[in-house]
Every structure is written in C-alpha cells, then in structure tokens.
C-alpha cells in the first residue's frame, strides 16, 4: 500500500474533482473542476508509464474539451444559483451513499490478488505506432464522433441562441 501513496492521493483528487464538477452550482466552475479531474488522470497515466496517453488526455480532455464546454456555456442561459443549490442539496440527500460505495469497492479490489499483466509496449507496440499505423479506421471513427458533436452543438444550442 505504501508503494502507491502518490497514486492514491491522485485518485482521491480525481474523485473530489469529479464530485465538485457534478455538484458545483456554476457551470464555469464545473468545467474547471472537470479540467482538474483530467489533469489528475494525466498525472496517473504518467505514473503508469504511458506518457503519450497522458499527453493526449491533457491536450484533448483538459484542453480541447474544456474549450468546447466554454463555447457551449456561452450559448446557454444558466439557472439561478438558488435553484441549483436547492437541486444539489436534494441530490446529496438522495445519493450520498454512492461515493461511499465506490470507495469501499475500490478498497475491496485492492485486497484482490490480481495477476501481473504485461506492459503496453509488450502487448502491441508504442502508442504512436498503434495510433497512426494500426488504428487508422478508428481514428476516422473518432473524427466522425467529433463531427457529430459539432452537429449537436448547432442543433441544440446555435439555433436556440438565434431564436433568443
């Protein structure tokens, strides 16, 4: 357990950031909390010796996705802080046990004797090689998902702003 102190701290930070993102009454602070959660994941990936995956996580999730969220927030009309706080209190009252269950499950899994799995490089080559040489069709698929997301922003938010 002592070998993983840094990882446990990062995991704790990740859970707290995620909770802040979900419970924050202000959308902007939620986005910042989400970006912080992505930074925690990035650091974890560096600790797990996947630096390229960490770089992608930082640039795409903490960077690009935050930018997309901010542009969408600029097109929405936020709820009043009073109504959001009221909803958050109700949500906490109903679902307080979920993070507790999550932590207990995590602690239970720590006690399992999991086998030693091979490192990523031993399985299928470097991240660079897999991404650019092996998974081209999946890259195309992910570009199409981003395109679909762009259509979603137009359909759900741009027209609404024009109507307002």
């Amino acid at each position: 357990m002592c070998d993983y102190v840094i990882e446990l701290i990062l995991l704790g930070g990740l859970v707290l950031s995620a909770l802040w993102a979900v419970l924050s009454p202000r959308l902007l602070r939620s986005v910042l909390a989400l970006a912080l959660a992505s930074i925690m994941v990035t650091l974890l990936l560096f600790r797990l010796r996947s630096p390229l995956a960490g770089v992608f996580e930082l640039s795409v999730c903490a960077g690009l996705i935050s930018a997309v969220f901010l542009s969408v927030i600029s097109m929405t009309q936020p709820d009043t802080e009073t109504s959001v706080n009221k909803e958050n209190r109700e949500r906490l009252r109903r679902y307080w046990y979920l993070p507790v269950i999550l932590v207990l499950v995590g602690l239970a899994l720590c006690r399992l004797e999991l086998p030693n799995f091979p490192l990523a490089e031993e399985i299928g080559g470097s991240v660079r090689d897999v991404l650019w040489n092996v998974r081209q069709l999946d890259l195309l698929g992910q570009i199409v998902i981003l395109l679909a997301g762009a259509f979603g922003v137009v359909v759900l938010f741009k027209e609404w702003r024009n109507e307002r």
Partner: protein
Amino acid sequence: MLPLLVLAPLVGLIILNLPIKAFNRTLFAVVGLVLALGQIALVWANPPGFLELSSPGGLVLGLVEDNLARIMLVAIGMALAAAIVVGHETIKEESRQRSFINLILVSMMGMNGTVLLTDLFSLYVFIEITGVASFIMIALHRGKDAIEGAFKYLILSAVAGALMLLGVAFFLLTAGATDFSSVSGALAEGAPHPGIARVAMGVFICGLFVKGGMVPFHGWLPAAYSTAPSGVSVMLAGIATKVSGVYALIRVVRFVFAQDPAVSQILLILGILSIVVGALAALGQTDLKRMLAYSSISQVGYIILAVGCGTEVAMAGAVFHLFNHAVFKSLLFSNSAAVEQQLGTTDMDQMGGLGTKMPITSLTATIALLSTAGIPPLSGFWSKLIIVAALWHAGLHGYAVIAVLSSLLTLAYFLGMERRAFFGKVTPAVANVREANLVLLAPAVLLALVTIGLGLCFPYLAESFMVLGRDRLW
C-alpha cells in the same frame, strides 16, 4: 466494395455541407435516399466477401460481409430509407431537416462500420458513433420531454460505453489483441487469466444489453422512442438499437465467445424476461409510441432467447426475426408518424374510427401487427415458428411454452390498439382527419409488401438466413 459502405455516407456528408445554394431540403432527402437504397442494391449485386486491410504495424483490420452482415446491411438501407422519407414529410424547417439528414448519414456510417468490422475496439467506436448521432436526433425539436428522453439515453449509453471499453481493455490484457479471431482463439485455447476473461465477457455483454434496451436495462428506451421526432423514432426503433445492441450481441456471443455456456444461460433468462416484461408493459399503455417501444423490448427478447439457445436453426430464427423486426417496427412507426401528423397526438384514447379516415395507414398497421404477433402467412410467423421449434428441439421446453404464450399477449395489446385507434366510433378529434399524403404512405406500403412477400416466399429464401457454418469466412 466493403470500405465503400463505410466511406460513402461520409462522402455524402461532406458533399451535402458544401456551400452550394441549390441544396434544399428535398435534395438533402434525395441524396440520403440514394445512399440508403444504393446500399441495398450494392449488397444484392455483389457476392459475399472478406477484406483484409494490412497496416505497417502488422494489424490486420478485417471487414467481413457474410450472410449475417449482408442481411443487416439490407435492413439498415431499408429502415434508413423509411426514416428519411418520414423525416422529410414531418420535419418542415429547412435547417432542422438538414441536421436530420446529416445525422442520419453519420449514424449510417456508424451502423455500417459496426456490421462490417471484425475488431472489438472498432465495434465500440462505431457503436458510439451511432449512439452520439441518435442522442442528438432525439433532442432535435428541443422539447422538454425530448431533451429528458435524450438525456436518459445519453447517461445510460455512457455507462454502456464505459462497460464495453472496460471489457475491451481486459480482452487486450488477456488475449493480447482485440480483433475477433485473436480473442476467440485465446478463449478457445484457454486464456492465461480465465477469471479476467470471464469478467471481460460479462461487462462487454452488459454494455450491449444497455445499448439494445433489453430488460433490465431498458429504462431509457420508452422515453427515447416516444419523445423523439417521428423520423428519428423510425430509425431508432427500426434499426439503430438493433445494430448497436442485438446484432453486436449475436456477432460477439456466437463468433467470438463461441456460445459460452454461462453467457448462453444468461441470454435465455434475460430473453424470456424481456419478452414477458415488454408485453405486460405494452398492455397498459395509452400512448401509441410508448406501446410500440415496449413491444420492441418484447420482440427483441425473442431474438435474445434464440441466441441463448445457440443451435444453427435458432440462430437462423434470431437473424430472420431481427430482420423482420426492423421491417415491421419501421412500418409501425411510419404509421404512427402518419397518425401524429394528421391528428396531432399519439394518445390512443383520442383516436377511434381512424380506419375509416385513414384506410391505407390502418391496413398497413394491421399487416405489421399481425406479423409481429406471428400470424401466418406473414414473415413474423415463420421467424417465431423457427425460434420456438429450435427451443423445443434443444430441450428448452419451458422457454418454448412461455414464448408461445407471450405471443398471445402480443396479439392482445395489438388488438387492443386496433380496437381503440382504428375501429369503433369516430371520435370528435378524428372527425376532420384525412389519409396521409402519398409520400408519407410510400414507406408504409412498401414495408407492408416486404412483410407479405417475405412470408409467402420464405421457403425459397430460408437459406439466406442461415448464418452459421457454411458462410463463416475467417
């Protein structure tokens, strides 16, 4: 031809979004229709094939077009063609119609990729493409109920995606690769970590259950189907959930997990649960679209039951029922669109005597519901008969009896719908209603003819639905 089926919708998408003033809403619909119908023609005209795309990294990316994939590609073409026509007639705003067609092409690419690719991670990516497009289309009109329905679908879809990705990660660790042949080979030889392999199978299949809207993961489905615009309901109910959940389940359980006994048992139990729960829930509905949504859950249960049985005949029955379901559910939602357009509501308590005002809609709806209930000589009779016979022959007598009795439930809720909506005295709301226009009737009539034709010609077409043994190409 195989990569063309994945890339053609993308090319169509790019062309339609060029800044050309001539592109109006009708041209958008025509391009979408040409791609959908062209897909059917392309599959019909070419023999089955298997294509390997080699990459410098050594991974062989496979695109397979066996009998199962060909049946699905034809079903995708038909259901999307119906959805495009219904969408054109029911979505009048130009910008929204354009967005609808754009998203239809995105989901077409996602579904074609799901059907053709032979890699678990690619399967996940292309299922997600369909899911993202579907979620946005459900909320197309931005009504409160539609956004709630879309949000439910989004959350559960995200959970399903996370489960599938977790399964893929475990397979990568235990089998060393994620393509179908490597994973199935590793499972057949005995994976180095059998416990982890079992967990991987379990979580991956859970994800597919959520995507397919099977009991007990069906909570999102009635809200999504009933609140979506009509053209989107045709697409979702007709084909999207069938490809993302049911087809992927068949492909993975049979061809990758080699009909693992524990997985088969779970499928049998969940299949029978879906049949009964869906049918009982449909009985109590007053909204036409919600009733059709619960009916979908019930009919998918027959397919899952047959996949759980796993014999060659059962698999043929499962695939045939999957195709039939795509046809008659698209037909029923097209009818629902016609009724909603004329009446302004899908509340069955306000309908009554619609049969006299909308005779063609009523007739095609009757054909669809009789086929769903398994009445001969329509196509649904054959697929249900094959499934029940396969279950009985495999010694699963209890399941066979429940499946037959549930068909009576299906008949009950559909006859109830017919009596309330189409027969009986003309209600005040229906007094001034007229039949839908020819364009909106066209997909309903054509799908009804397919239902009748498949039923009458099934003895000559039975071979096309045999998906095991002979046509396995890798």
